[in-house]
């Protein structure tokens, strides 16, 4: 079974802090994704990566950056946390290339509160 593990289930931080969210997958997937999920707005893509050290902006990248130094690990960074970044953050991974129409598999999410 595919396993996508997010380092924290719940996180509370203060405005202005630099926040790191970590995600690890064990399926040797090329693609990794970061989403945020908010009531009434659904799932929105922040950033994705299709290879080590490669990244692409999603629909809402402002205020975020990412890092992918190893194939299995994808980090989301909030450079200076603000209260409007309070949300549920979901990491996902999938194959690319010929198998890119295979499903994305999700972690259990990190519920982040910025005070």
């Amino acid at each position: 079974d595919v396993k996508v593990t997010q380092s924290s289930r719940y996180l509370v931080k203060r405005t202005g802090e630099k926040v790191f969210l970590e995600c690890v997958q064990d399926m040797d997937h090329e693609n990794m994704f970061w989403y945020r999920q908010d009531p009434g707005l659904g799932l929105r893509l922040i950033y994705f990566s299709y290879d080590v050290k490669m990244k692409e902006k999603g629909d809402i990248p402002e205020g975020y950056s990412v890092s992918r130094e190893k194939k299995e690990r994808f980090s989301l960074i909030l450079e200076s946390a603000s209260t409007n970044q309070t949300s549920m953050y979901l990491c996902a991974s999938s194959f690319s290339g010929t198998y890119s129409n295979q499903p994305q598999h999700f972690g259990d999410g990190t519920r982040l509160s910025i005070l």
Partner: protein
Amino acid sequence: EDQVTQSPEALRLQEGESSSLNCSYTVSGLRGLFWYRQDPGKGPEFLFTLYSAGEEKEKERLKATLTKKESFLHITAPKPEDSATYLCAVQANPPRNMLTFGGGTRLMVKP
């Protein structure tokens, strides 16, 4: 622009009362349509992928179907443990490889 609309937003059923959830989509070339189940406080769990109109997939009490404009998730004789939010997402043909999600249908099954 790819769009996905799910209806209804919320659905209350009695245990054993069958029904269907709808996912209408517009996409510039469908590469795949995905159904997920999401329990409160958890990430989406993959259920089905459908690739072409006329295709059907089944898993226990769930059956997903696909036409050129919409997909249905039929729930036969649901049980309380089927209560969850069901998400639909579409993937367009390359180069755009990302998923576009609908807003979800929150299903509540009462015993």
